[in-house]
């Protein structure tokens, strides 16, 4: 039996906490999922299921990340029987290095408002006429941890989070926990959590947890 929270959302009893794969297969429109992984294998497992299910359903998928992150996903899709090159040519599958779709970054500040707008325009081209929805997979690890530009990364997450009810899309952001330094990232991690709707943690239970189901208020 479901219990209603103050925010009107349903509160799940313990035994009903869903496993990550059910969320990743069919994420609700507007969901903004945060995956924190400790093994790269787990990142590929989750991402390839997310992408493959979208392609099966005729949705457009956009993957944003370094070549190191996207190459294993391409390989996993190929192993699963998808003709990746043909999907790329038809633009059902978009692969972007940072925010410049299917090309190398041309500007030093890819996260500028103009770049984000251009990126969204490219991503949503043909939606909803040809594609009913869009799925966006992104690994902002290099931006968030290695460059140390927390504010830019969080600004991007925030802009996606604010637009999640406007566009017919669902987002999956993968963060490499091996780069998390508890003292250094303690405050920023709160902002990361605040700007997502679900968490797929790296723990053994393999669950997906809803973030701030009460809206975060007292």
């Amino acid at each position: 039996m479901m219990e209603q929270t103050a925010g009107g959302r349903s509160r799940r009893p313990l035994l009903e906490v869903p496993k990550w794969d059910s969320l990743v297969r069919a994420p609700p429109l507007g969901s903004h999922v945060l995956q924190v992984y400790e093994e790269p294998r787990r990142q590929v497992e989750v991402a390839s299921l997310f992408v493959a299910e979208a392609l099966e359903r005729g949705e457009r998928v956009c993957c944003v990340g370094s070549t190191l992150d996207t190459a294993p996903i391409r390989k996993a899709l190929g192993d699963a029987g998808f003709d990746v090159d043909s999907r790329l040519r038809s633009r059902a599958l978009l692969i972007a290095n940072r925010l410049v779709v299917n090309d190398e970054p041309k500007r030093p500040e890819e996260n500028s408002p103009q770049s984000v707008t251009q990126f969204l325009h490219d991503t949503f081209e043909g939606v909803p006429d040809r594609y009913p929805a869009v799925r966006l997979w992104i690994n902002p690890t290099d931006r968030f941890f290695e460059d140390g530009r927390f504010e830019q990364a969080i600004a991007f997450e925030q802009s996606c989070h604010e637009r999640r009810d406007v566009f017919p899309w669902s987002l999956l952001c993968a963060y490499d926990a091996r780069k998390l330094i508890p003292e250094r990232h303690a405050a920023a991690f709160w902002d990361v959590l605040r700007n997502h709707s679900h968490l797929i943690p790296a723990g053994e239970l393999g669950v997906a947890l809803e973030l701030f189901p009460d809206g975060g208020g007292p």
Partner: protein
Amino acid sequence: MIDVREAIEEIQVRTGDQAYWHALEMVLGTLTARTLRSTLRLKIRGEDLSERERVAKGLAEIFSAQAATVENLARRESALRGPRPREAALQELEMHSHWVDFSDAANETRRAMGFVKRGIERGAKVVALLPSPNIEAYRREVAGSGCGEDLDSGRSKASSRSRGARDIRRSGWSERSRRRYSPRRPSTRPSHCESKRPWIP
């Protein structure tokens, strides 16, 4: 006499907390749990709250009812690993477990009786290695607890610590186990000397 009560209380608190942190890491993964722990230490204020209470409060905010996943696991972990009533712990001792029991000299043999009786009930042979002055007290306790027959039949045996250690050495067990668990080294034994008895160079 050293009063260990305060230390034991501290160990009990630490065990409970460790079970909680362990449960958190099981659900969230080690690195996320540690970062979140630091995050919630910063975010959740309250001088009168322990670190664990702050984290629990923060989890309830982040995950709402799902925070129970962690709490529930922590309770299960505490039950498995944390402190239990002494009598219950003695009833559930597992094979290969190795316990330390602190007691006063005055009631040492009496406190051991639960363990001894449980062993006899399970059909085990019970050997007690004791300081020599305690052997008589042990025999009296065994007789008084209704296991006197086992003492007569040899199923429950009391031995002084020094004699017990000597018996073990003589049985060759300690030498066999030393060889079994030590890295294999080239034998220095002459090849014509073939004996099944333990051989000490």
